[in-house]
């Protein structure tokens, strides 16, 4: 049942949430929980029957071959599938025990509490400063905007590189800097959970390493779910790993499915499922 302090149905005028203080009827360690979640595009069931927890202040990785539905599940966690025509979710996506797909839940409020960083760095065609300030402004956080922007950029390990050119276009930054700017923009509104959809797939190895370090830092304050097609990355940055694969049913339709969820160390060294073992040893996918 929903706890009192996690009201997703209304938009507070000023909502500065302090991460890491979540309470709820769920076990204190899991901030989110998927219970038999299936995602449909029209009549096509893209992912079926996924159940797993998202542990607080931990990094949960989702891995698996292309088309296994890992990104689809990720986008279901903050209702980013909503704008896609025909997309539908069944089952429960619980956030502090409250189902995100309940009728009275406001998706706007959900996304403010559960932010997202995308595969391709997508800063707005605005200045660096305005990129970070955008989320603060729309959430009605007034005054000391400069402080908030600096704080977010610092947390994203970007401040030193951009502090002298805050009014310059964000599009003039390198790809890795752009992605860290996108992370800064996300953490500026202080969500509890940050979803990352293959955040390094468009970046070179050095920029990737910086983002990975950053992810590790961010777990002090945030809960992170990261989709990656890079198994080494999952092994490096995550505490828990979910392995998805694609199954072909009798009608020759492919459905994504969660095969195994466990602590990252265990999943990579001693997987319970044969399919997981085949994947991580490079035998398929």
């Amino acid at each position: 049942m929903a706890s009192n302090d996690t009201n997703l149905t209304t938009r507070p005028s000023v909502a500065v949430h302090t991460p890491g203080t979540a309470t709820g009827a769920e076990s204190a360690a899991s901030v989110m929980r998927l219970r038999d979640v299936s995602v449909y595009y029209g009549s096509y069931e893209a992912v079926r029957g996924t159940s797993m927890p998202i542990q607080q202040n931990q990094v949960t990785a989702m891995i698996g071959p292309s088309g296994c539905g890992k990104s689809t599940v990720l986008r279901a966690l903050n209702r980013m599938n909503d704008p896609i025509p025909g997309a539908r979710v069944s089952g429960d996506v619980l956030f502090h025990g409250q189902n995100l797909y309940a009728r009275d839940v406001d998706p706007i409020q959900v996304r403010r509490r559960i932010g997202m960083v995308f595969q391709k760095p997508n800063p707005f065609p605005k200045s660096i400063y305005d990129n970070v300030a955008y989320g603060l402004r729309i959430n009605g956080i007034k005054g000391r905007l400069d402080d908030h922007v600096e704080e977010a950029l610092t947390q994203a390990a970007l401040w030193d590189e951009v502090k002298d050119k805050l009014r310059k276009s964000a599009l003039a930054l390198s790809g890795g800097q752009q992605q860290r700017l996108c992370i800064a923009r996300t953490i500026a509104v202080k969500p509890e959970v940050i979803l990352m959809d293959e955040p390094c797939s468009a970046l070179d190895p050095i920029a990737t390493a910086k983002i990975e370090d950053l992810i590790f830092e961010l777990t002090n304050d945030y809960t992170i779910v990261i989709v990656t097609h890079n198994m080494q990355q999952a092994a490096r940055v995550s505490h828990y790993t979910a392995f998805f694969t694609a199954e072909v049913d009798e009608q020759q339709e492919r459905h994504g499915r969660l095969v195994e969820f466990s602590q990252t160390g265990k999943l990579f060294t001693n997987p319970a499922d044969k399919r997981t073992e085949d994947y991580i040893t490079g035998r398929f996918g």
Partner: protein
Amino acid sequence: MTLTKNPPAAKPTLTQRGSSALGDRVFSWWTLGTGLLVLAVLGLILITTVREAWPAFDAMGLRFITERVWDPNPATGDAIFGALSFAYGTAVSSLIALLFAVPVSVGIALFLTELAPRRLRGPAVTVIDLLAAVPSVVFGLWGILVVAPALVPFYQWMHDVLGGVPLLGRLFGPVGSGRNFMTAGLILAIMVTPIITSITREVFSTVPRADKDAALALGATRWEMIRGAVFPHSFGGVVGAVMLGLGRAMGETIAVALVIGGATNITANLFAPGNSMAAVIVQQFGESTGTFTAALIGLGVVLFAMTVLINVFAQVVVRRAEARMKGSVA
């Protein structure tokens, strides 16, 4: 270095040009030619119109654009040709048109790109494009027979309510026949809405999904997403669309000639009759001779110059605004 000692066998293939080179050359000449053709036509129009208008320019000098009197057949003395009243009419009616057309067009375009159900989009676009296909004389006749008389009571009411307000009231002065700046502006607004809508719609639809997702993922409402992701991305394109609409409004001839009232008049009162440059040309060209004809062509030159100036100005505005909004790239 073994690489440099490679036999030169591979070398000729780098300089050989296949048949594709001919296609490239034809293509580049063709595009260059058409590009130059446009410039040549523009230049020729300018040169010939200025030459034809020269007797009037010569007689009036700079007064041609500063004089508000237009009297081709005075009882005594020389004819007076001043374009100012008509330039004013062109500007006022076009501004009114944009004032109404731009918010409406942007609204329709946003509805079609962001809100409308997919199956409604096609038919809606067709209807709007059909609006663009209606001949302007039809708009004019509709304006003079239906719109103008129908609006008179409304104008009268506006005059009664707002006429007494200091300064603002001057815009809503005494109402005559209903053929006036305001009616001309409203008819023009309807005429330019399709073009502005269809271009803004194109521009909005080029906003990357990623930008919109970024805004939504930060907890933006649909309107906040539009303001944060769609508008900054499309500002230049929307201004371009508005400029095309403005060009059409300023150059519109027959519809304006029918509804603007046909008076040589500079007044703040939007309910007073006036005239525009394009309308005057079409009204008076048939009965003109000599310097009078030259003066009418001169109006065309002034209209042409105004359009060019406004477009240049708009480009400067876009560049400045984009630099401010997007941050300087360098």
